[in-house]
């Protein structure tokens, strides 16, 4: 019995120390800047208006895709919407809208009122999928190319300057 207790004690201690060691090399600051230059994580998002799912393969057909996270309850999303509308007219880019923690009816009303810039429209009602993208608030947008490399990440609402930069990237 005594030996078993000793063994368990040693095991627990070694376990704790190992976890400490592993934690050392992790960044505890939540920061998503490092995502630029990386590949997009595997995605599987449910469409808002159908039972279809979007995956990475859907995005590979486009030259460029802007993944935009939004919600009808988010005020800055209203502000940036006009820029998304402008961008949606560009042939070189498709916009994937991810509706974040929202009610479907409110989301659709929002688009009816302000226009629908989205080529794909997906939903993330629990917000969990978006976290996998490295999102920590909305609106946020991620620009990827057809190889799914992350080219740019915009935290907060898009503005004129962002729009110009995106247009410059997708032109080349």
């Amino acid at each position, binding site marked *: 019995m*005594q030996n078993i207790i*000793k063994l368990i*004690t*040693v095991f627990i*201690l070694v376990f*704790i*120390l190992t*976890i*400490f*060691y*592993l*934690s*050392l*090399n*992790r*960044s*505890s*600051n*939540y920061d998503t800047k490092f995502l630029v230059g990386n590949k997009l994580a595997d995605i599987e998002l449910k469409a808002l208006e159908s039972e279809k799912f979007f995956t990475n393969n859907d995005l590979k057909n486009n030259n460029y895709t802007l993944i935009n996270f939004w919600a009808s309850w988010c005020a800055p999303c209203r502000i940036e919407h006009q820029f998304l509308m402008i961008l949606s007219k560009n042939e070189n880019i498709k916009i994937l809208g991810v509706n974040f923690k929202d009610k479907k009816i409110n989301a659709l009303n929002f688009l009816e009122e302000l226009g629908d810039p989205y080529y794909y429209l997906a939903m993330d009602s629990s917000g969990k999928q978006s976290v996998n993208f490295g999102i920590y608030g909305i609106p946020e947008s991620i620009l990827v190319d057809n190889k799914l490399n992350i080219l740019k990440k915009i935290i907060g609402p898009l503005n004129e300057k962002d729009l110009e930069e995106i247009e410059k990237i997708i032109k080349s």
Partner: protein
Amino acid sequence: MLSNIGNFLLFLNILLSCLAIYFSVSCLKTTNDLVLKKIYQTSLLQCTTILISFFTLVAAFIISDFSVINVYENSHSQKPLFYKISGTWGNHEGSLLLWVIILTVFSYLFLILNKNHPKNYRLYTLVIQNLLILGFLIFILFNSNPFSFVSPLPNEGLGLNPILQDPALAIHPPLLYVGFVGSSIYFSAAMASMITNYSDKLFAKSIKTWVLISWSFQTLGILVGSIWAYYELGWGGFWFWDPVENASLLPWFAMTALLHSLLVLEKRNALYFWTIILCLLTFILSVTGTFLVRSGILNSVHTFANDPTRGIYILMYLSLMILASVYILFTRYKPASIEINSNSKETFVLVNNWFMMFYLITVLLGTLYPIFTDAMTNNKISVGPPFYNSVIIPVVVLFLFFMAIGPNVKWIKNKFINFKIYLLIFLAAVLLNFIIFSFFKSYSVISNLIVISSLFLIFSSIFDIFKKSSYNFPRVISHLSFGFLILFIGLNHNFSIEKDFNLKVGETKQIDNFKFYLKDLKLTQDTNYKTITGQLKVNDLFTKEERILKPEIRIYDNPKTLTYEASIQSNFLRDYYLSMSNIDRSEYYNIKFQKKPLMIWIWISVATLSLGGFLSLIRHAKYN
């Protein structure tokens, strides 16, 4: 120049530490019972040189010698003298120097104050303590050197983090360090005791002073830290179960348990190995806490910079310490032979220890769990107050009852004779509780239980004073304070009022029975920061009380930082707490207002709790 002196002194200290170990080991082999004079001398010299090296660093801060990188990074020539000095230990490198000072001074004091204990026990303690010192000195010298040189010489320093510019902070680290670094000495003594088989009540006597010192200072250190978070950081309460606060609480639980199990070892020669485990655990938890906050695994105001090499070093140190102590413990362990009666003081002390272990494990789990899930599953979670409150509070109720009865239970075998008195006290507590709650018209089962059990402890402690001719005064003070502490926390928690709203200049807002009016904003220029002061009139329509509160937003130049200074008005009955923060691109300010009853009594209870420890120290010194 100062940088060279400092480095030389650190090297000298490593040498002296090695010498102390060498002399001690060679003295162990001699047959006579005398510790060689040169060991005393070496140990004293160690203390002197480490103190001089510390004052060298203080001097570098005072004269703003920016050729020392530590001064350059953490000071500024325009800073008030007081904060130049306290800045010495307000950073990673400087505070490590404080660590080593306490390790060294305690090592010397233990050596000279325990002359009536066996030579080998004292020498082994010295050797182990010096190994600990050596580890830290090497860490300082090669990884976190406060005397590192910067070239070319900068004109001006980067400045001290403004939230560290506070009088409470000047004393918070030294107090806390005496507490948890002080526990190193009974870690070493426990190891020495196992190695030399010095396991009777005399061992308990030899470490009791040190346990009392570290416990009292740890309590004070936690108190000052908590006050600092309340007044300076504007956290708006006394405890947040923040991982850093938990890191200081964990060794405190172990120390408290140790303090009580020492009684049994001293009186009955029982629980020896349990006491040893607690000695080891206290210091191991202290180093673990240091590791967690310094390595950057936990983010906090104590994480000075994110540097994984520091983490690796402290982790190696911690692992070696744990492995060595566990190895010695396992090879020396013998099952206890003394039977303990289930109705005896011994059992009650054990019950105290179980409770402490329960709290310790709960807080440890809550603190480590997020680290584990992050490392193993990549999920970032955090464990917040609801977990701790719901696990700990119900158990505290039971604990307080045991705490009230325990001290009057007899050693070896007890008979309950004063059952009637306890029943009376209990009824009085229940009665008073209902008076309090009917007066304030608020009801919750758990707060009633908390108030009843704490009143029960308070009444029975007061009763002890009148009943017994000779009672243990320090014990009564501490137990009484703890009862009051829980009582005030319970009342404070239950009757606090909190409001959160936005306001612009000239606007009035009424929420429930409070009326708020933001009269004016003032901009003033201080030596090293600008201040925006808000003038808020608060009317309590219920009590007709009118107060002007002046929260501040401070804009520091070096480094460029915003801090929010809450405006707090305390009196003996309640605190008004108001903080104001600006909202980007808006003329509105976010206002957080709290009315917290009996806040000041929470601090006073903790202060008297620690006073009990100091009194006990004096009492222990007098009788031994």
